[in-house]
């Protein structure tokens, strides 16, 4: 059994994929819970599609795609938040606009970089073999920044998510916190890109959280359970994708989905 479990770590690329996966598994639901309770679940998907534009720019200009993707998604995150605050377009329509527009731009850019288009599948669905050492460091450093910021402002985010007007009335700068949250979401999206893939990041941020929410516990417990489900999904997903040679992102999300379906079943019987 031990051999079975540890065989996977004989390969450096699997060790890197695991470490990166664990970092993402912790951060994704921590951000995800705020997106879910604020009915902003589509945000993760939108930022993911935007980061695909960044990937395409990276491939075209011969820069590291993860860095161009980070820049693009953070800039767009700020743009989306500004449009939302000004309230000229409905929040949801802003997301739909950015989502489809960025996919269009990305597809144009990718077709311009024809020679590289083979790589794009890995970005779309996640590919465990592609996490390099430099990239792992990048993920680790940014991951710690995201986690640290999140822990610092967690009680403010909780308060704002519960009722934004209440928070504003008591003197909390809700605009600033909202902006920080969406920038953190943008960073998480780009960190997760390699392991889970652009098309599936939203699922990793949302599914473990709604699974945890089925149990109707306190906010704290819901957060811990969300992180737990996310870690289990990533670890199990990586093993399965290694053994069966499947796309890592899809496998992780399918595992997360199974947890969700089981949680629905358990809580129905209650």
């Amino acid at each position: 059994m031990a051999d079975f479990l540890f065989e996977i770590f004989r390969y450096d690329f699997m060790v890197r994929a695991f470490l990166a996966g664990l970092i993402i598994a912790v951060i994704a639901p921590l951000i995800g819970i705020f997106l879910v309770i604020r009915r902003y679940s589509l945000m993760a998907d939108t930022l993911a599609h935007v980061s695909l534009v960044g990937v395409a720019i990276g491939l075209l200009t011969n820069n590291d795609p993860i860095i161009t993707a980070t820049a693009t998604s953070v800039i767009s995150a700020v743009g989306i938040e500004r449009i939302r605050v000004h309230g000229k377009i409905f929040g949801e329509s802003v997301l739909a606009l950015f989502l489809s527009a960025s996919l269009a731009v990305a597809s144009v850019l990718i077709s311009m970089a024809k020679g590289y288009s083979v790589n794009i599948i890995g970005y779309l669905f996640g590919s465990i073999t592609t996490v390099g050492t430099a990239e792992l460091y990048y993920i680790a450093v940014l991951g710690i920044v995201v986690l640290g910021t999140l822990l610092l402002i967690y009680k403010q985010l909780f308060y704002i998510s519960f009722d934004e007007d209440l928070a504003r009335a008591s003197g909390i700068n809700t605009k600033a916190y909202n902006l920080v949250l969406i920038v953190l979401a943008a960073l998480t999206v780009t960190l997760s890109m390699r392991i889970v893939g652009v098309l599936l990041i939203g699922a990793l941020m949302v599914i473990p959280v709604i699974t945890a929410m089925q149990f109707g516990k306190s906010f704290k417990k819901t957060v811990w359970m969300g992180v737990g489900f996310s870690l289990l999904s990533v670890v199990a997903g990586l093993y399965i994708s290694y053994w069966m040679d499947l796309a890592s992102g899809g496998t992780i999300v399918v595992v997360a989905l199974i947890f969700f379906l089981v949680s629905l079943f358990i809580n129905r019987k209650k």
Partner: protein
Amino acid sequence: MNNSHPQNHDHSTHAADHPGRELEQKSRAPEHATPAIEVTGVNFKAGNSQILKDISFKVSPGDYLGIIGPNGGGKTTLIKIMLGLLKPDSGTVKYFGTDLNKYRERYEIGYVPQKASETEGRFPATVEEVVKSGRTARIGLFKRFSSDDRRAVDSAMETADVARFSKKTVSKLSGGERQRVMIARALASEPKVLFMDEPTVAVDVTTQEKFYDFLDLLNQKMGLTILVVSHDIAAVAKKVSTVLCLNQEMVCHGKPALFMKDEYMEKLYGKKVNLILHG
């Protein structure tokens, strides 16, 4: 309208009306010179329609003010301006002599919003977590939850009578219970002023009665300045010490007995309104 209203805020009169408040009035004596809230010349337009026209009034510390008026009369708008959620086109709001925009202790202004009973329905949090969140603005960014914070939360839960179900998630509560949780949340930040927007919308009549008794208690025993917006004129008139009638402009401001006069009622609602006071 200017600041001189038929009823000025004479505290000796108020104290006589509410014997329970006498003690509290004395202990707060130094604050008497400054009104708890001072609204001056507030105007607010939405598009072409004037929602609020030249609203000016003062609220003394320990006052219990009922804001009444027809739907669309600008009650909620006024509250939102007073809380800093909307910017008036002109006019100022001061708390204890300081302009709202410069008032740093904003957590001293408690607010129980109208929608309290509906929207948080599916929010994954326990009663205790929601009440604790009331301390957030007071604690600030870098400090952690202290034993003082703990005491304030426990006391707020006791006062609002939600301590016995503190571990329940808010989604499992009734409308009335959730309302009390929102009040406990507001009390946890140890406010000096408490705003309530249509607090009894989601609760039945018996609960309403109890609820207004509870507000009485907060006002008289704890000396909290309370502003309550309500469409329930009868209930408000019976309990509050001052009434402000709002229909775009201030129709009247004074003791409940004053606004019960037909002329104000007609001005406010455009027709005669017969008030039936329960109980």
